[in-house]
């Protein structure tokens, strides 16, 4: 049955792709999108796609850029770094593609970044800046807040609330590694001590052994530096063990999936997010209401959808400030001069190729909905 449905979908997709090509009359401006639509990071890739589609539809409904519609060339990189690099080369070979967006998997984004640097294609990525080398890249522009900023926000929150003993359980992946590094680096400044640190692999599904050890260190705040489903299972395991400490998590735990997986025991979870829950900051209002209209069953966007939306908006903003005929060099220069306040990110690429400190907002789960953390 599932097979037959799959086949039908496949045929339908072929028809749609074949039929869609000739619909537009004005020559479109093409943006390449490398998206992790399968493989371990696929949930993030699919979220990004939701935001990207919204933004493209919005821009085109408003008449496109100087009368020319935006056309997305979307490619699936399957959460594979080498495939992502190959797709960047493929897109670079298409002279109509003015910029590349996407790549939610950090290693994939890194290999796209290293590739476009050689091939001179502007690239706006939904990941965070990880190294000095990347800060010097001319063609890559980051939209996810630095991990140092996420760690700092968590420590500021701990300090404000008077928590002094912090227990950390983190994933053995690049974002967990970065989180641990910066929490350790900044914690003395905030009068916080990291009393326990335990790790788990991506594929781990039971964390009671790690949590039992953390419990013995007696922390008063626990940081869950994980993504789903691992992070939600940490929360469930912790509550089942009777650990009632308040919980904080970075952006990787943002979204409705946490509410679904962890259920009521996630109540009170604080998340460093890039979108302020259901309320929204002024700069996010338009996106949140458009999103709610498009998804009545699930009206709260998550950070990755908001960031995906901004990827397109950043490129479009740069196109609007460029005089045709468009070239990649001109588009790159326009992005590099951009100061932009979007739904999911705040950047000033004149200063650095990554977001400013205003990007992060602390939100909290209250009665199953995200609101601004008090």
């Amino acid at each position, binding site marked *: 049955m599932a097979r037959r449905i799959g086949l039908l979908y*496949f045929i339908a997709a072929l028809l749609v792709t074949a039929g869609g090509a000739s619909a537009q009359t004005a020559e479109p401006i093409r943006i390449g999108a490398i998206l992790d639509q*399968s493989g371990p990071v696929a949930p993030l890739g699919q979220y990004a796609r939701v935001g990207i589609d919204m933004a493209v539809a919005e821009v085109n409904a408003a008449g496109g850029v100087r009368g020319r519609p935006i056309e997305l*060339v979307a490619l699936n990189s399957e959460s*594979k770094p080498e495939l992502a690099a190959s797709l960047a080369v493929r897109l670079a070979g298409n002279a109509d593609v003015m910029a590349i967006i996407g790549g939610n998997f950090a290693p994939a984004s890194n290999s796209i970044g290293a590739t476009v640097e050689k091939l001179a294609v502007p690239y706006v990525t939904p990941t965070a800046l990880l190294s000095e080398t990347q800060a010097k890249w001319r063609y890559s522009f980051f939209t996810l807040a630095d991990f140092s900023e996420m760690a700092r926000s968590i420590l500021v929150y701990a300090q404000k609330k008077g928590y002094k003993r912090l227990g950390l359980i983190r994933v053995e992946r690049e974002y967990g590694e970065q989180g641990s590094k910066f929490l350790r680096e900044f914690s003395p400044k905030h009068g916080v001590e990291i009393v326990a640190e335990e790790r788990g692999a991506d594929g781990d599904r039971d964390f009671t052994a790690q949590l039992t050890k953390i419990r013995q260190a007696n922390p008063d705040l626990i940081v869950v530096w994980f993504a789903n489903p691992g992070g939600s299972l940490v929360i469930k395991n912790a509550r089942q063990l009777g650990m009632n400490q308040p919980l904080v998590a970075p952006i990787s735990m943002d979204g409705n999936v946490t509410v679904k997986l962890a259920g009521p025991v996630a109540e009170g979870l604080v998340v460093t997010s890039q979108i302020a829950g259901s309320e929204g900051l002024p700069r996010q209002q338009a996106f949140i209401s458009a999103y709610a209209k498009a998804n009545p069953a699930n009206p709260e966007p998550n950070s990755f959808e908001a960031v995906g939306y901004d990827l397109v908006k950043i490129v479009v903003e740069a196109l609007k400030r460029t005089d045709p005929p468009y070239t990649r060099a001109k588009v790159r220069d326009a992005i590099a001069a951009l100061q932009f306040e979007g739904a999911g990110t705040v950047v000033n690429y004149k200063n650095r190729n990554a977001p400013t400190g205003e990007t992060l907002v602390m939100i909290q789960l209250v009665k199953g909905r995200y609101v601004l953390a008090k």
Partner: protein
Amino acid sequence: MRTALAILVLVFPLVFGGYASALHLAILVGIYYTVCVGLTLIFGIGGQLSLAPAAFYGLGAYTSALLAVKLGVPVFIGFVAAAVLCGVTGWLLARPLLRLRAVYLAIATLAFGEILITLIRANTAITGGSTGIVELPAPSLAGFSFSTPGRYYYLVWTLALLSAWIGANIVKSRLGLGLRALAESEIGAASCGVHVARYKAWMFTIGAVLPGLAGALFVHYLGFISPDSFTVQFSILIVMILAVGGRDSFLGALIGAVLVTVLPIALASYERYSPLIFGVLFLASVMFVPKGLAGLLMAAVPKKK
């Protein structure tokens, strides 16, 4: 046949040099092909299922990358070091591991890869951890830097053809005959005077050196290294290449490498459906062309020597 292939490899950049994607694909194919030549000896000719290629690919890549970045060692010396380290590791692992049959060997080699990846992820200060290292230097020899895709292409394919040549000679040699005998029947081979343990150890060592070298070439081409390129997925990819192309000939490895490299890139525009299309094609190929496309080709072309 062989000469035609060599000429094709030689002139490819002169024809397609203007197309960045063609050159890029050719470099990847060359790298995968090198891995597969090593594995053909183990899978096809030795009849053993090893999931170690990812581990040796990663070991070689990290050896050369870390020597270059942390100690400033010239990349070519790093390549040699990668080959030597992988060879020694392969030789040491061969005796205990190759006593294992079929799926036992697969799981043991998988566990070896798991150990390596965990050590790489955990020792951030040395390896760059899960975050990896960006901006690896390009290799250079006597002042000549292999920094453009065109130059890198020749570097990769020199190695690929060299390894295919060595592989072909091994197959024809006493060692190769011994390996084939082993695949047929271990006891039979032993009774005919085939030194089972030593042949297997050689096979495993060559199957470690070539992926190691290929891994080193790969990361210095990409300019970026992280443990995610060396997971079990890579070993599965190699098994797929050999399955599609035909696992008992080097021509099969080449056909497989081309298809398995090009298809995901070509299918990527079907987005969510691309792994499905790829999977169906793969399943169809193992069901309907069990000897691989090379076998099909060999059967179609009349035999001549």
